[in-house]
C-alpha cells in the first residue's frame, strides 16, 4: 500500500486530499500511471511545471522505486508569506 497526499490546486483537481493505492506500485512512474487510470486530469496536473514530489517527506527527483508503505506527496508551486 502506498499513501498519496495532494496539496493546493491538486486537491481541487482530484477532489480528494489523501488516498491509498493497493497493491503497491513499484516505482513513482507506476504510481502516476495508476492515478491516471482513475483521475486523468490529476495525472495531467502532476506533470505540470513546478510540481514537487516527496517520498516519506524527502523531496526527490526522477523515477525512484517506492518503499513498501511509502507516503508520496505531490506539491504544486508553493507560495507562503
Amino acid at each position, binding site marked *: 500500500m502506498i499513501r498519496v497526499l495532494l496539496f*493546493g*490546486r491538486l486537491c481541487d483537481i482530484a477532489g480528494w486530499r489523501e488516498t491509498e493505492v493497493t497493491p503497491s506500485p513499484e516505482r513513482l512512474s507506476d504510481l502516476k500511471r495508476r492515478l491516471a487510470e482513475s483521475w486523468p486530469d490529476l495525472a495531467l496536473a502532476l506533470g505540470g511545471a513546478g510540481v514537487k514530489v516527496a517520498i516519506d*517527506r524527502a523531496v526527490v527527483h526522477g523515477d525512484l522505486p517506492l518503499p513498501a508503505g511509502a507516503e508520496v*506527496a505531490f506539491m504544486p508551486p508553493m507560495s507562503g*508569506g
Partner: protein
Amino acid sequence: MITLTDQPFDPGEALNRFAAGRCESGAVASFLGLARGEAGQATALELEAWPEFTTSEIGRLVDEARRRFSLHDATVIHRTGRIAPGEPIVLVLTAAGHRREAFEACDFLMDYLKSRAPLWKKEFGPSGARWIEPTERDLADAERWRR
C-alpha cells in the same frame, strides 16, 4: 522558533517577546505580511500547510539564515487556514549584532517563504477562488540568494 497557527496572532506581542532581554543584539529586523483586500477583489485568503513538513522545511531555512547571516536568533510565525483582509499572515523576526545582517536575513527568509516554503495560498473573491502562485518577481527575488 517556527510557529504555524490557524488562529490570529499578535505581532506586537511577538516582537516584544523576541526583543526582550537582548543586551548584545543591537539589531532586530522584522517583516509582517498582511492579507490584502485588493479593493474588494479579495474577501479572504486560505493558507494550506502540511504542518510537520512545513514546519521542518521552514526550520531548515531558518537554520541556514542563522549561519549565513551570523544571526543571534530568528523566529517565523505563519498563519494557516482562513485569513481576512488586514489580518497578519506572516511575521519574520531576526536579531543580529548589526543592522545589515538582520535586514538581509529577514529579506532572505521572506523570499524563501514566498516561493519555496510548503504553503499553498488560495484567494477568494466575488468572482470565485484562485490559487496564488509565486510571481516572476518572487522567483527572481529568491534567485538573488543562490550561491
